[in-house]
Structure formats: structure tokens, C-alpha cells
């Protein structure tokens, strides 16, 4: 299996401020691509464009060779995006939060899958506690449980290490490598220094 996300001559201009210009990207299976740049260089904007949220750009995007506007649904079905905010409802329990995410892609899933996923991020015993009562780090772990619960080929992660403890950071980093080794693809921004790996590639903005 191989996948590729390509950008050709990608430019983005927000309110007359040019964030980046003429960007060519090829992101393929088995890669961890880290987008780097100072604050305000457009890292989040680039991730939003590459995850299909922001459609206000010049240039072309291709998903497996098909122009993005024709491949939108297939692309989204293979995408897992985690943004700045974890996307966890404080009024729902961890299990209920995950159940909604499973259903969004059209599959109901099973309770045991969700329990396993929660266990894998160290949240065993917190399944039925309203997420609002958990710490910021634990809420982010619920979001990270989606990485195992809903397998997707392309991970787009915007600052995924925020609020995670040191052990969690090491584990998540390892998970990224395992995903890339299995043929997946990771696109990430972070201020945390990633351990060097042959799979890691850096793209500098700004």
C-alpha cells in the first residue's frame, strides 16, 4: 500500500500577508514530516490546508494523484487530524467521546475496541468519568486514543505533545515511528525536539 499527498506551487495569503509561496510538497508512506518555523510562520495554516479544512489557497493539492476537490471524501476517510484543541466534550465520558468519533466515519464500532484504546493511552479506570473532571493531559490522551481506535493512514497532528507528561511524550513519539514503519504517514508540528530517525524529514517555513 502506498499513499501520497502532493502539493504543487502552494501559496497562502491571509489578509495581504503572504504566509508561504510556491511550496512543493511530496508526502509519502513511511514518512514523518515535521513542519518547522517560528511562531506566525503559517505552520497551523499549512496543516489546515493539507488536512482539507482551509480552502483558501493558490496552487494544487493531490491525494494519490487525484485532484483534492475530486478526492475530498476518500481523503477525509483516511485522515486523522488533531488540532490545538483536543476536541473532547467535557460533558461526555471518555467512552462516549470516542464512540462519537467512531460513528462520524460511519462505523458504530464496539465498546471493547474503545476500552482497549483507552487502556492503551493509560486511561483504564477513567472510562466513565466525565472528561471535564480529567486533567488537560488526560483529555489530550482521550484524543490520542483515536490514533489506535480509528486507524487512518495519514495523521496530521498540530502540537500533539501539548500537556502530555514526559513518559507520554516518549510513547507518542514511538507510536509515530511505528505508524510510519507500518506504511502510514505523519505530518506534525511541534516545539518539542523529535528524536532523530531515518523516517523523519523536516520542512522549514518562514
Amino acid at each position: 500500500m502506498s499513499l501520497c499527498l502532493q502539493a504543487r506551487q502552494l501559496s497562502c495569503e491571509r489578509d495581504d500577508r503572504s504566509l508561504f509561496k510556491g511550496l512543493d510538497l511530496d508526502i509519502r508512506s513511511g514518512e514523518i514530516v515535521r513542519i518547522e518555523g517560528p511562531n506566525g510562520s503559517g505552520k497551523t495554516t499549512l496543516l489546515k490546508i493539507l488536512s482539507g479544512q482551509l480552502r483558501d489557497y493558490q496552487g494544487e493539492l493531490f491525494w494519490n494523484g487525484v485532484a483534492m476537490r475530486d478526492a475530498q471524501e476518500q481523503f477525509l476517510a483516511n485522515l486523522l487530524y488533531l488540532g490545538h484543541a483536543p476536541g473532547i466534550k467535557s460533558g461526555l465520558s471518555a467512552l462516549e467521546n470516542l464512540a462519537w468519533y467512531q460513528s462520524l466515519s460511519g462505523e458504530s464500532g464496539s465498546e471493547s475496541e474503545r476500552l482497549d484504546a483507552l487502556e492503551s493511552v493509560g486511561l483504564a479506570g477513567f472510562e466513565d468519568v466525565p472528561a471535564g473532571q480529567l486533567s488537560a493531559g488526560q483529555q489530550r490522551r482521550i484524543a490520542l486514543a483515536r490514533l489506535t481506535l480509528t486507524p487512518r493512514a495519514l495523521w496530521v497532528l498540530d502540537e500533539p505533545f501539548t500537556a502530555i507528561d514526559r513518559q507520554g511524550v516518549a510513547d507518542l513519539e514511538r507510536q509515530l515511528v511505528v505508524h510510519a514503519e507500518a506504511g502510514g504517514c505523519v505530518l506534525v508540528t511541534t516545539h518539542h525536539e523529535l528524536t532523530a530517525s531515518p523516517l523523519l524529514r523536516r520542512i522549514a517555513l518562514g
Partner: protein
Amino acid sequence: MWAFIHKLGSPKWFYGISAKLQPWFWVAAVLLIVSGSLWGLAFAPADYQQGNSFRIIYVHVPAAFLAQSIFISMAVSGLVFMVWKIKVADMAAAMMAPLGAAMTFVALFSGAVWGVPTWGTWWMWDARLTSMLILLFLYLGVIALRGAFTSRDSASRAASVLAMVGVINIPIIKYSVDWWYTLHQPASFTLTSRPTMPTEMWLPLVIMVLGFYSFFIALTLMRTRSEILRREASKRWVHDLIKAQVEEAR
């Protein structure tokens, strides 16, 4: 057709072509409005029922026409901006909104002034005036929404969507207000619905309407031109243009 649309979309091209068109619309506006008001106010015969107070229609009707047309052109510009990403369309829409609100206010105010001799009061919940009042609120909503965003790109899109939603609603609002009015029947006769109007009364009215439209086009061209300069201030062609004008002035 496509080439034309994209050419029109380039601010530089629009800036050039509007410079040529603008004077003609100004001349037409002045000629039409001056002759229309002279004819309408001084020479047209007085109304047999309302006397001279009917002459306010020479301001009220063109303003009301324009108030509705501007909202429609604002929504069309919004659609053009959203579909083809033509920025000039959005600049024009942004410039039209305050003018439309002003025209709506003129229509409301002239209607109120006409109400004093006719109904003996400044305000009646007449169907036309009520629709106009709602239209004024719609304009204020679009202007307020555009002003509320810090990002101009988002502001443009949000205002475009709201203008389109508004324009779909205007006929529904108008129809329901008319229906509501006939149900309650408060006043006996309204400003503009009269069975027959002699030619020497309606001809100046047509001239005034045309004059108001020319005025609207001329003013929108002028304001869009300055908006183009403001938004494109960092672009190369604007720098060249200003340099050339400074040279010329020397």
C-alpha cells in the same frame, strides 16, 4: 466569457476601466437628477388629492428602488466573490452596503415627511414603510457583521453569505408584510399605489430613477477605486501608478 470574468477580476484592470467609465456616469447623474427635480418639483402638475405634498415621490421612489437594487447587487457581488474568488466583487459589495443603508434611510425619512400632511403623523405602519424598515435592519446586520471580524478575508465571506441569505428572504419578508398589512388595514391610501398617473407626472419620476441609478454606479465605481488602492497598497502596480502620478505633478 471566462477570460472576460478573470480580466474583470484583476483589480488593476478594473482600476483602469473604471477610470474611463466613471466620468460618464457622473455627468449622467447630474444631468438627470437636476432636470428631473426641476421638472418634477416646479413644472409637474399638483396632485388633485394631495396637492403639492405628492412631489416627495420624486425622492422617495428612486431612493426605495435603489435601496432594494443595491441589496440585490450586493448579494450578486457576494456570490461572484464566493464562486470565482474575484476580490473586486467583494470590494464593491463592501462599498455598496453603507450607500444602500443610506438610501433606505432616505426612503424611510421621505416617507415619514410625506406622512405628516397625509396621515397627520410621522410614522404609520404602512406596508412599504415597514418593509423598508426591515431592509434597513438587514443592511445594518451586513455592515455590523463585516465590521466584527478581525480577519478581512473572513469578514468578506461572512458578509457575502449573509447578503445572499438576506436576498432570498427579502421577497418572503415583502410578501408577508403585505399580507399582514392587508389584514389589518390601518391607513386608507399609500404613497405610491395610485391608479393612473398622467404622463407629465411620471416622466420626471422615470428621469429621477435613472439619475439615482447613475449616481449609485458612479459613486460605487469611485469608492471601489479607492478601496482597490487601499487593499492593494503593497502591490507593485500601485507603487508604479503613484510614482507616475507624482512625476506628472512635478
